[in-house]
């Protein structure tokens, strides 16, 4: 009866200690350390550093108009980086995100022009198509259990080919026809690609959408059931399933969110340039993924934020424009990015270790 003693009266005192009791072994962690536990802190510091650096290196950037350009550039990356980040927290990534933007824009552009319909028809069909591509990615992933790298690599190749071939087939060209004189164009442009005036500085509306989406994504991630599920399916899919999280639903809808982002950015491109080049978008997917990783999202899932990728995208925009305004050769951009990516990953790693250590 080696286990009998534990059932003796001594152990039978009510196990619940008083509510004020603490276990007394952990010192209160310093506020700074607790702040560092947030995934977006590393990238915030990085963004500030890059910002200050280019303000010094490129004095012309200090002008409000140049800042608006930086923000615009950041927003077109940032809007896509958000769903890509959520997907990454959910443990997957999507290599087809870059060409999916173009697929969406091509769909809307060609449909509207060929059928001489109101552009809104094309916009709606493009949305359905984008969501369907996302749902397909998610569904194949869930059904086959293949890694998302393979599934979305296949989608990437398919979309890339379809974009070029179908555009050639329909328009006889590598770009779609100009739709700027069609019904509904002005409305759609107002929604996706207009600008407005802030104290004499012209700001693109995508900047507003970017921040609205970021706020929404943050709320969903931290304050809703669905957000809880995203962290869970990325952190440990089997555990999540065992406690009743709808893993299939969560994964598929995450891919569909990326589809939504691709649609939105695609519409922006269509309505700001009036035509779409069918070969574009290749390589952009890596920029989105990099922005999410620089933003503190764990590549293997289960950890990250929606605010981090906002700063990640801002760093991209800043570097991109900063190099131009500093008068350097723009070819340096990618090299700069690589260094930033590695630096950000190392900082995040260090911060996370420091913060989760007790």
């Amino acid at each position, binding site marked *: *009866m*080696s*286990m*009998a*003693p*534990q*059932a*003796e*009266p001594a*152990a*039978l005192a*009510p*196990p*619940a*200690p008083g*509510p004020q*009791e*603490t*276990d007394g072994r*952990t010192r209160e*962690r310093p506020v700074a350390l607790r702040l560092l536990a947030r995934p977006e802190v590393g990238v915030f510091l990085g963004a500030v550093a890059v910002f200050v650096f280019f303000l010094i290196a490129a004095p012309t950037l200090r002008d409000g108009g140049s800042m608006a350009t930086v923000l615009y550039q950041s927003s077109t990356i940032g809007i896509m980086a958000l769903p890509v980040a959520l997907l990454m927290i959910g443990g997957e990534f999507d290599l087809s995100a870059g060409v999916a933007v173009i697929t969406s824009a091509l769909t809307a552009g060609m449909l509207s022009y060929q059928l001489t319909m109101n552009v809104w028809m094309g916009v709606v069909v493009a949305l359905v198509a984008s969501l369907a591509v996302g749902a397909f990615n998610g569904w194949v992933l869930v059904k086959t259990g293949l890694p998302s790298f393979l599934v979305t690599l296949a989608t990437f190749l398919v979309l890339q080919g379809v974009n070029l071939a179908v555009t050639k087939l329909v328009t006889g060209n590598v770009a779609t026809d100009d739709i700027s004189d069609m019904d509904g164009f002005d409305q759609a442009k107002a929604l996706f690609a207009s600008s407005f005036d802030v104290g004499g500085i012209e700001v693109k509306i995508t900047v507003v959408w970017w921040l609205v989406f970021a706020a929404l994504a943050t*709320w969903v991630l931290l*304050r*809703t*059931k669905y957000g*809880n*599920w995203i*962290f*869970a399916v990325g*952190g*440990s899919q*089997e*555990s*999540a*399933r*065992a*406690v*009743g*999280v*709808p893993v299939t639903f969560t994964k598929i809808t995450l891919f569909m969110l990326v589809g939504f982002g691709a649609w939105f950015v695609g519409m922006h491109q269509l309505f700001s340039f009036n035509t779409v080049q069918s070969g574009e978008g290749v390589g952009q997917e890596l920029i989105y993924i990099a922005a999410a990783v620089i933003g503190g999202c*764990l590549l293997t899932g*289960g*950890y990250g934020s929606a605010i981090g990728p906002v700063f990640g995208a801002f760093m991209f925009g800043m570097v991109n424009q900063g190099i131009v305004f500093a008068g350097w050769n723009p070819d340096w951009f990618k090299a700069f990015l690589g260094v930033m990516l590695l630096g950000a990953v190392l900082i995040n790693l260090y911060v996370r270790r420091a913060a*989760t250590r*007790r």
Partner: protein
Amino acid sequence: MATKTPSSTGAPGTHGAVLADPAPERDRPLVELRGAGKSYGNVRALHGVDLAVHPGRVTCVLGDNGAGKSTLIKIISGLHQHTEGEFLVDGEPVRFSSPRDALDRGIATVYQDLATVPLMPVWRNFFLGSEMTKGPWPVRRLDIARMKRTADEELRNMGIVLDDLEQPIGTLSGGQRQSVAIARAVYFGARVLILDEPTAALGVKQSGVVLKYIAAARERGLGVVFITHNPHHAYMVGDHFSVLRLGTLELSSARADITLEELTNHMAGGAELAALKHELAQVGGVDVDALPDDVPDAAGGPAPDSADKSDSTASDSTASDSTASDSTVSGTAEGKA
């Protein structure tokens, strides 16, 4: 008091609704397996197993490593599907497609691997998959304050005091994680509570608390499936014992029909432990006399007084367990009221 359950705190979700049903007659099993089996490809992990979980009774499942215990409970908890035989809930054949189905019928499980997400905070893990929310649909959001409070209360009832429920559960010790998993299942298990080796990583005090929880759950009228390697733990709280061996039932016996000695003997461990002790004695350097006596005694024909002794101790502790569990439960109930 007998119907006092966690859901009376107003936790949303289905387990409250399930509880609203009038208690079924005592003799109809909540969950029943008839000739159930499970093959993983060509591995037949389980074959021809009968098991009944009655309200207010503790069914213990014992067996060696790899005997199929976890496979058995994974069928009941909806993680796997049986490939042969029948699985009935409330007398009606079912086939769960996910653990959500089991939870919706009030069946909660502590998995052997605990099923926690290491990087998520303790309180989020506690409520994962059954989150409390507030507000109407478009702005329906997590009720974080209430979840933290509830998780803290339930953990304190387990004797686990955490300074910071925000810390990732991966930073807790193995036993603390296990306590969180148990507290979670106790909180959500409205009708059937399944525990897969819940005491494996626990200290003496926490093991005692778990056994009291099992007794308390029985008092509340829940059906409990208790999986363990430890026949002493099983005998303290069990009403029915099933011993699995290589995927089939080796023994299925009510408490009245079996003594602790026999139970210990039926577990493959009994005879082998005797042999092991013998071997250790020959190797030397091991204080064999300090090892527990009853196991080898049982294997080598039990001395009558030794059997009596351990048997009476066991029932003593079971009796005191139930009284203790009453106080535990009322304490819990007051805390919740």
